């Protein structure tokens, strides 16, 4: 890592002051370069800090030491003038005045970027779809951007990394300092994403996870992307922020439809009702990406809070859809179906793709618990179903077969 220049060290030192917020940082750096801004703050003479709120905090901060700290951590300090600063963020009303980066943030230049985001408490269905989208988008040359959270975010990045070295690199946007891997179980994922692409954050080194940082992070996720895809999201879940942030910037929002019975799809299904375009696979996203990138000049961002997402998001029209060609990633292949009439076939027909409680399967099949258990275990072993505790889900739609209508019971 090259030495951190004095100007950048000053920017980092400002960002790391006690009580600093993204908004205040923007104000401090609005008319001054980092070095002047720092000396003004340290002298208590900064006009945007009339109460000298930051002067006390700046006392005892040694700019050189801050620069060393960032160098040792292998973290770059980016200001909007830097070539490596994401171009999409320049001119964004919410653009961070200082951005920290691990890896190579320039991977965002000249490549389309798609955010794949969603709830931390995701269903296996959501995780699978996120992983498939991540893999297929990366294979198609799209930078997959996500928040590195548990659930959907992590699955999308894992999928993107799975696509191999020739695929487009991923970019993670963290809400904590870049030396604070959060959640801790994703430390490996962080390192892998940073090694292949980049992990960026506006939080200074050592910043712990804090409630307010996550929605703020989501605006950066939206800001660097051409399209945002929400895979699964609860009613009023955090990903709604990302969708709203995208909508305010006229960035199209795609949504993966889910079961109306699944609480993890309540937020996404509501976004669909609001007019977001539906996403079935990477193909649907790629169509939206090509449309979004054709509009070279993005209209001025609309910094209007509280405008419904529907007003800002236009789904792509049907006739503009690309025909499904050979370039489309192949759908995952289902294993050979169990023979008709077997217990396995009955159980598979009774399983939904969302987790189905074992009691429901028992009622639908009328099998005895022992037979049911055996059939479920065999379906899992054959790759047809996923197992959890007290619930199972099927992994693939049944080929050419609809669930038999359940007989209404005379009552």
């Amino acid at each position, binding site marked *: 890592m090259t030495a951190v220049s004095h100007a950048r060290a000053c920017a980092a030192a400002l960002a790391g002051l006690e009580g600093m917020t993204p908004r205040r940082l923007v104000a401090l750096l609005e008319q001054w370069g980092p070095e002047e801004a720092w000396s003004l703050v340290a002298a208590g003479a900064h006009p945007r800090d009339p109460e000298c709120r930051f002067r006390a905090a700046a006392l005892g901060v040694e700019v050189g030491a801050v620069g060393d700290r960032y160098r040792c951590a292998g973290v770059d300090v980016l200001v909007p003038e830097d070539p490596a600063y994401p171009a999409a963020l320049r001119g964004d009303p919410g653009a961070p005045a200082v951005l920290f980066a691990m890896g190579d943030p320039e991977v965002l230049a000249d490549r389309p970027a798609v955010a794949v985001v969603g709830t931390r*408490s995701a269903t296996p269905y959501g995780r699978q779809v996120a992983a498939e989208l991540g893999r297929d988008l990366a294979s198609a040359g799209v930078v997959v951007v996500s928040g590195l959270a*548990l659930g959907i975010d992590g699955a999308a990045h894992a999928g993107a990394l799975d696509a191999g070295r020739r695929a487009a690199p991923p970019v993670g946007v963290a809400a904590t300092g870049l030396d604070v891997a959060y959640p801790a179980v994703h430390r490996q994922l962080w390192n892998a994403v940073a090694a292949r692409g980049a992990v960026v954050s506006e939080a200074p080194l050592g910043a712990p996870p804090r409630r307010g940082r996550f929605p703020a992070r989501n605006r950066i996720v939206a800001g660097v992307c051409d399209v945002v895809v929400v895979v699964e999201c609860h009613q009023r879940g955090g990903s709604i922020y990302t969708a709203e942030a995208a909508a305010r910037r006229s960035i199209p929002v795609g949504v993966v439809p889910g079961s109306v019975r699944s609480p993890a799809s309540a937020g996404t299904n509501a976004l669909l009702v609001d007019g977001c375009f539906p996403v079935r696979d990477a193909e649907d996203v790629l169509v939206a990406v090509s449309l979004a990138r054709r509009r070279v000049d993005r209209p001025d961002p609309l910094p209007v809070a509280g405008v419904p997402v529907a007003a800002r998001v236009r789904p792509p029209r049907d006739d503009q859809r690309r025909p499904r060609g050979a370039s489309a990633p192949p759908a995952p292949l289902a294993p050979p179906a169990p023979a008709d009439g077997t217990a396995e076939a009955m159980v598979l027909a009774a399983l939904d793709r969302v987790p189905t409680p074992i009691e429901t399967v028992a*009622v639908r099949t009328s099998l005895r618990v022992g037979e*049911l*258990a055996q059939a479920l*275990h065999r379906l899992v072993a054959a790759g047809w179903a996923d197992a*959890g*505790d*007290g619930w199972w889900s099927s992994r693939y739609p049944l080929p050419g077969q609809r669930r038999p209508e359940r007989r209404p019971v005379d009552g």
Partner: protein
Amino acid sequence: MLATIPSAVLVGVEGRPVSVEVHVSNGLPGFTVVGLPDAAVRESRDRVRAALLSSGLAWPLRRITVNLAPSGVRKGGSGLDLPIAVGVLAATGVLDVREVAGRAFVGELGLDGSVRPVAGMLALADAVGDVPVVVPSQAVAEAALTARSGIESCSTVRQLVGCLTGAEPWPDRQAEPVPSPLTGVVGQPDLCDVRGQRVARRALEVAAAGGHHLLLVGPPGSGKTMLAERIPGILPPPDRGTALEATRVHSVAGLPLPPGGLIGCPPFRAPHHGSSFVAMVGGGTAALRPGEVSLAHGGVLFLDELGEFATSVLEALRQPLEEGIVRVSRARGTVSYPARFLLVAAMNPCPCGEGGPPGSCRCSPVARERYARRLSAPLLDRFDLAVVLQRTDADDLLGGDPGEPTAVVAQRVAFARYRAATRGVVANALLSPERLAVTAPLAPAARSLLDAALRSGELSARGLHRVHRIARTVADLDGAGLLVDERHVHEALVLRSRRSVLLGEAPR
């Protein structure tokens, strides 16, 4: 003048013979009790005096000394009222010593001269030795459970004096109710009320048949309590030894006994999660009351909201679960109470209570993990079986098959218990790994299934034996022969308990 009257006191749930020696001498009138009496015994002076006066008998204005022997045992309870009264009457010559000799007495006196039952009559009547014993009329059924001969009863002091002097006959014992037969439980909730919930009902059946402790995980309203309450109905009735032990415990605790006296059906105890250590385990300063673990002896101990119980209370379950008894320490040594029960517990799957698979509620995986960690691994390890319950949905209410009635399930359970008895254990949960290998050989497919689970790390060696035992019970319920089949193991794998039931995630 000296009179010696045999009687008994309670130490724990056991009776200890006590000899009540009453000495009446000239001197300053007074009444002294020596020989480690507790407060209740010291108060007996006032009760005995009032009872004698109310019965039209004289209270001697002389010096009365009561010695309780042996002196090493702390004597508690009010059951010594009657022997003290008889002793006073004999020592003052109201009764002839020969009329009194050769009889033991146990009972409390009312101020009006009535003779009242005391807690633990079964144990007390057992303890007095080979002499005939006179007990309060209301307790005669309970005392008769000792299967000893020579039980007489009286309901007032006046009647007792009449009987002892031969002025009137001893009351007829024919009036006493016959002991209830050991079977036939009426008025208990029936399993057929549970619609749907087929897996949960099966888990109940396996738990009852194999003596496997059961954890029910589900949101409020998913019928956890409703299911648990129905387990005593499908459990086999306790054998006579266990029934007597359970009756003793209930009697010592002063709880009402069924007509006929003997506890003939498995008890169901559901202590509140706020229960104290003493309430759960037994003990206390004044009387060593048996705790809930002993009151559940021979039946079901149901702990609803398992996660809310104090850790010390849950840890105290370890000894009874391992040894079938609980030791209660007190100032002078320890007493042990029987405490062999089927442990059934219920809890919400997650902080918000909704639970279900990941993504179905708003609790983050981290919050769920924290919630699951509230139960210590050793405690969770006590449960062989776990079922995840859902709220019964419309599917079940309309299409769910009507539940099998308790009587039918109980028959299968009884048969499985009979099979277990042929293996030398009460239930399969007690089979040692060595006995298990002999009495539950695995079919090749079943063996390879377990081997695969062991290799993949899904099962530990300990977990393997557990699944094997459950599979034995499942096979017994299905009427299978010696060999345990693949499908029995499949079922056992679905029903077994593991930590991940609280996380809703795939087993690891």
